[in-house]
């Protein structure tokens, strides 16, 4: 699941997996080149970004910026 925090300066995407299983999200809908700026994993494994696809391990957080 995703939240987009937005203001004029610095829009960011905060992706949080609140479940105990991995999930993948496709952000191609945004039509932006994305950058994985921060990755946190409460269970140890960290999110990854491949193009517009974000892989979120169980209980992990990714902060994504548009380039």
């Amino acid at each position, binding site marked *: *699941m*995703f*939240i*987009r*925090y*937005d*203001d*004029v*300066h*610095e*829009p*960011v*995407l*905060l*992706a*949080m997996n*609140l*479940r*105990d299983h991995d*999930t*993948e*999200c*496709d*952000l191609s*809908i*945004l039509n932006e080149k994305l950058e994985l700026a*921060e990755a*946190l994993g*409460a*269970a*140890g494994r960290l999110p990854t970004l491949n193009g517009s696809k*974000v892989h*979120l391990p*169980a*209980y992990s*957080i990714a*902060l994504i910026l548009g380039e």
Partner: protein
Amino acid sequence: MFTDRLRRILIAVVLVLLVLISRFFPQTQDVFVSSKTASGSNTVYEIFVGSFCDSDHDGTGDLNGIRSKLDYIQGLGFDQIWLTPVHPSDTYHKYDVKDYCAIDPSFGTMADYEALLADCHSRGMRVLMDLVLNHTSSAHPWFQQAAAYLRSLPAGAVPDERECRYISYYRFSAEAQDGYAPLADSQWYYEARFWSGMPDLNLDSPLVREEIEEIAAFWLGKGVDGFRLDAVTSYYTNETEHNTEFMRYFCDTCRAIKSDCYIVGEAWTDRNTIASLYESGIDSLFDFPFADTGGVIAGVMSGQRPARDYVREMIASEELFSRANPDYTDAPFYTNHDTGRNADHFQPGQTAALKMAYAMSLLMRGNSFVYYGEEIGMNGSGRDENKRGAMYWSNLADDPDICSPPAGMDYIQLQYPPVSVQMNDPDSILNWFRSVITLRSKYPVIASGRSAEVEGACSE
């Protein structure tokens, strides 16, 4: 002459530069930034003073103990502290005040409090004072004098405010009423909604309001950065309009003294009522709909609610609250001194879920509040004393910083190691909190921006 000319040229150059800068970066004029956020991490560490750190080894946490732990608190990323009441009181929790302009001797002295303020301010940290205006202690001299006067009256006599001003400070009645307690050794009753030891103040009394203005001026004059208002829905029990009016009065009073004073209220109620209370112009009200075992965070983490509810409820709150007060600052929290602790919401071993639950609160908009001990996953639920146990600094049997547990607290087996151990474990709950707060600090938009859902991008 030459110097004057040079000065005029320099001023002209600076003005031209300012005009150019404002042309090239016009968006800086339009940014939505809540007035009380957008610098630092906007995270507040709630300290239950008597249980946090004991500097004089009498078993009770104190102000100098807090001072000695400011490196720890700031090192986690917090930029504000909220201390539960520090005023003289006969109870361990101090939510029944005997003197609003003094410090409870078990916590230290006024000089200690001033030193704590100075230490925090020198670090760029704000200090929020817990202010209990709904009621006093029955041992407060105001109540004692009112009670003594009423007891002195002959049967059937009508109390005269000119003889004792303090009878107008409370609500007395000659007849028993719902929410009223009998005044011992008299025919009188007084309003005391919480319990008989906490007589409700009559907040309509001009004399009480004068006292409140003096109290606010006293502490703001000392350098307090704001107030956490206790039990605001009880000022006038469940009379939202009346409560809103009182909070507007209080906020106006404080801002007239200190324009950037930050005020957050405890309104343990539903979202619509909280929205109505925001019409008072108060900066923040605790976001109870997200907190505790019945809130959105617990509902999502237990699987009883879909994960997207976290975002959708956040958006719903933002829309509702900002309509009531466009400058509002949300005050998310997950647990506090009245709720069971986070670790008790999960089965042993569900550490990742426990970490994630608090991260949800820490990544919400506004000023995010964290209750002491949650950063190490302390346990504590059931009776109130259990929720307010001694901060677990180390596993040394004779650690002088560790306080005695509150009287009446059950024995609680703590599930996670103390601060001293977690500090050195990169995967600890403590270091998780540090990482999430760092994220919040690095991207101020998390605290100040608007949230939205990117729909259809991913499943649960």
